[in-house]
């Protein structure tokens, strides 16, 4: 249904209602389409008046829909009136109404009222992140940065995840302001990005750059750049930090991999205790390896070729410089078949150690174990993103450790498909996170807003340095 364009009299509303196929839900449907068409609120008011006069009351859901219309059009005084009416009639409101009220008031001069509403929400439930975001944006818009940061900290304490939008607003509205406290808060946001391995998108990166350059008396200069493969920043020739974990983090990660990924709820789901024990003794007796290869994954790299040939090429390619290789496979590879020629397998076993798991076991878990057991220098080869194994880890902190370790230790294939030879891209020698040395900041950023594959890391960087 199309809402009328001007306020109607009672009998006109009645007529419209009768012509509607389902008269009971007429008002609701009409309000929905008013919100959709952004009808002037006078029309909505006339409908409300009609409803109020014929029923002596207006249902709560109609009030909420009317409120949505007012919020959409920024009718602040109307929002306040509706709130007053709702408050006299109902002890508490539902979350939808609070969301609308807070959002509506935050976009107006009455934004402080939204703060009292936020307090009201806290009494009955945990406010949503959009509640906080509206308030934070309003506060920073009115240059009340202290209040904005207080709300931001409160939000983090409630385990709500802020959007990039809010973080960007905090940078935008702090531009040109002085204060060590404020500066620390903003640095904390950058460290929050670092800890959660988040990358700002391009416009957010510009906000960060502009804020740095606007700090009075500190002479920050920002440059957009891409980091060399060696991990050196071409602008300030600073060497980026590598993705090595600390001793404690490394041990922690190794234990969690064994506990959550390999054993999980039941060791038999991925392997069996006997098999895992056998693998452990196998690895211990031959440690340390330099590169661990997921044999089956590598063998599918070029579908036209025989599987054992692919693996043979890969092993030859990686076996330079006396690197100690371990290839993980399954027992079926040992049976002479069209894809697995016994002679080639024998030839390969001279160049690398092999471990063959049961056909129904998961070799990826063994890959992780062998690599972690060999030490920090050891890398692994697979095209798999290992997301399902990451998901087995129960807390986000360990997942971040896993991602960091994976970035620095996974060797992937170079994507060029035409080349005859198999080529490998070495693991990143530097870590792709927000990082600082005090007088420099290096911030990786995403070119487009919606790049969100977890395995993709940005190649573009913002280099900030302070000139003293």
């Amino acid at each position: 249904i199309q809402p009328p364009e001007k306020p109607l009299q009672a009998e006109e509303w009645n007529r419209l209602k009768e012509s509607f196929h389902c008269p009971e839900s007429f008002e609701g449907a009409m309000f929905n389409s008013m919100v959709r068409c952004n009808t002037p609120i006078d029309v909505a008011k006339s409908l409300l008046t009609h409803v109020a006069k014929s029923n002596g009351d207006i249902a709560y859901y109609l009030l909420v829909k009317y409120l949505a219309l007012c919020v959409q059009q920024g009718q602040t005084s109307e929002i306040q009136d509706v709130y007053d009416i709702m408050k006299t009639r109902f002890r508490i409101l539902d979350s939808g109404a609070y969301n609308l009220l807070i959002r509506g008031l935050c976009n107006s001069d009455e934004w402080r009222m939204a703060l009292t509403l936020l307090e009201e929400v806290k009494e009955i439930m945990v406010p949503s992140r959009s509640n906080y975001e509206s308030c934070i944006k309003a506060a920073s818009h009115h240059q009340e940065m202290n209040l904005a940061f207080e709300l931001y900290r409160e939000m983090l304490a409630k385990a709500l995840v802020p959007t990039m939008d809010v973080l960007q607003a905090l940078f935008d509205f702090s531009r040109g302001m002085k204060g060590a406290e404020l500066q620390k808060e903003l640095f904390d946001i950058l460290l929050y990005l670092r800890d959660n391995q988040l990358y700002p998108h391009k416009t957010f990166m510009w906000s960060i750059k502009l804020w740095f350059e606007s700090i009075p008396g500190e002479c920050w200069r920002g440059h957009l750049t891409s980091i060399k493969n060696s991990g050196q920043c071409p602008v300030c020739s600073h060497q980026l930090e590598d993705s090595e974990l600390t001793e404690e983090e490394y041990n922690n990660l190794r234990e969690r991999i064994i506990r959550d990924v390999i054993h999980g709820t039941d060791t038999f789901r991925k392997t069996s205790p006997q098999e895992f024990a056998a693998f452990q003794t196998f690895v211990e007796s031959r440690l340390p390896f330099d590169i661990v290869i997921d044999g089956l994954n590598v063998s599918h790299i070029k579908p036209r070729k025989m599987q054992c040939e692919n693996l043979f090429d890969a092993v030859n390619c990686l076996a330079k410089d006396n690197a100690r290789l371990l290839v993980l496979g399954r027992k079926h590879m040992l049976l002479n078949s069209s894809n697995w020629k016994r002679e080639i397998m024998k030839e390969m076993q001279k160049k690398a150690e092999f471990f063959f798991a049961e056909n129904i076991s998961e070799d990826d878990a063994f890959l992780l174990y062998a690599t972690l057991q060999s030490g920090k220098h050891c890398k692994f080869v697979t095209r798999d993103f290992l997301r399902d194994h990451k998901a087995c880890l129960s807390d986000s902190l360990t997942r971040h450790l896993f991602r960091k370790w994976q970035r620095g230790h996974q060797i992937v294939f170079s994507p060029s498909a035409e080349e005859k030879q198999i080529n490998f891209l070495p693991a990143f020698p530097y870590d792709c996170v927000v990082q600082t040395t005090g007088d420099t900041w290096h911030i990786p950023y995403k070119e487009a807003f919606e790049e969100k594959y977890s395995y993709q890391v940005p190649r573009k960087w913002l280099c900030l340095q302070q000139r003293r």
Partner: protein
Amino acid sequence: MQSASMLLKKVLRSSVLPFAAQHGVKKDLFPLSRTLSLSLCLKQDNSPSPSEKLDLDAWKKVMKSGLQEVGKETVSEHQELSSLAAARELLDMWRLAGKLVPENISEEQLQTFMERPSKSAKKKYLKYLHLKEIKKKSDKRKMEEKRERRLQAQEQASKTDESKRNSFVCLWASGMDKVHSWRAAQSMIFGQPLVFDMSYEKDMSAREVANTVRQLMFSEGCNRRSVDPFHIHFCNFKDNSLYHKEFIKYYREAWGKLLITVTDQCYTDIFPKDKLVYLTADSPKVMKTFDHDKIYIVGSMVDKSIKTGVSLARAKRLGLETAALPLEKYLLWNTGAKNLTLDQMMQILLTLKDTGDWKKALEFVPKRKYCGFVNKPVHELKKSLNLINALKFGKRQEEVQKQFAKNYSKKLTRK
């Protein structure tokens, strides 16, 4: 003044005609709304006659007057609220806002609602209760309608009462029950055992356990009604487990009289290991034929979140043979997981036992999950294969002919 001119502009820009024509509003509305629009414009400029004025804020007066005291009273009444009452109040508001919330909610349900860990989990639970409530209501309504119809039918029947003579006393239901029980009792002595492994309680949520028990009840029913029932074993069954409680809830006193074997022993203690076959969708082995000498094990587990390999792990631990149904071989799989419900498994196994016909047995796989049987269109597959080949050759025909000519000329030159 500005607003008045704005309004005028709006009225001019948006002529009423398309609106009326588009939406089938009765034609007589058209002249009326035009006068109205004119009067509105006038109203803004110089005060119009009060009778024509539309008081747009009249609803506020209605809402504020009269009901205010009522509101205040309720506020003072509920000054101190327990968390339970607060949750109930919140639910009331959600219902008023038109969300999917049940009308009646028990203390127990409210407690589970509050214990849900996240907002979305809470919403999901409420939706579930809401749908349950609607279902219950419609069932009740249907029952009442049915009863009324029956009463009417009885009245009519009593009017035209002709006692029919029949050689059988009409005792179908209980008679059939006796026949089924007799068969089930026989199966308990001579029947082929079928094991349900009841050791998955800790892998499931309470609702999954409830679903499992419902499926087991269906399975038991199918088995009892079949011509040659299995001897059902519930193995690893712990008394006072969640399974047990759910069974008691539905079967009540009939639970003790079921013609099945319930034991806390493991199947490996009861049967020889080499006879056991664990049926699991994760098995690498595919079942070829139904073996009447084997004892098949089905895991009593409903798996709503994806936990692959749980039952395969159990079979591996005990060193048992495993098998999966040959779904891929016989069905053109479309969507959905390969794990079937317990009652579907039961129907399939019963059919296999009686007929050994895979096609007939796999009729019980839900239709939405597959496109069709593979063995049916085999000749069609061949036909399409031929067609593809023909097309290929059609393209390459010249090439082939050239090749042929070349070879032929070679042969000629050699000679």
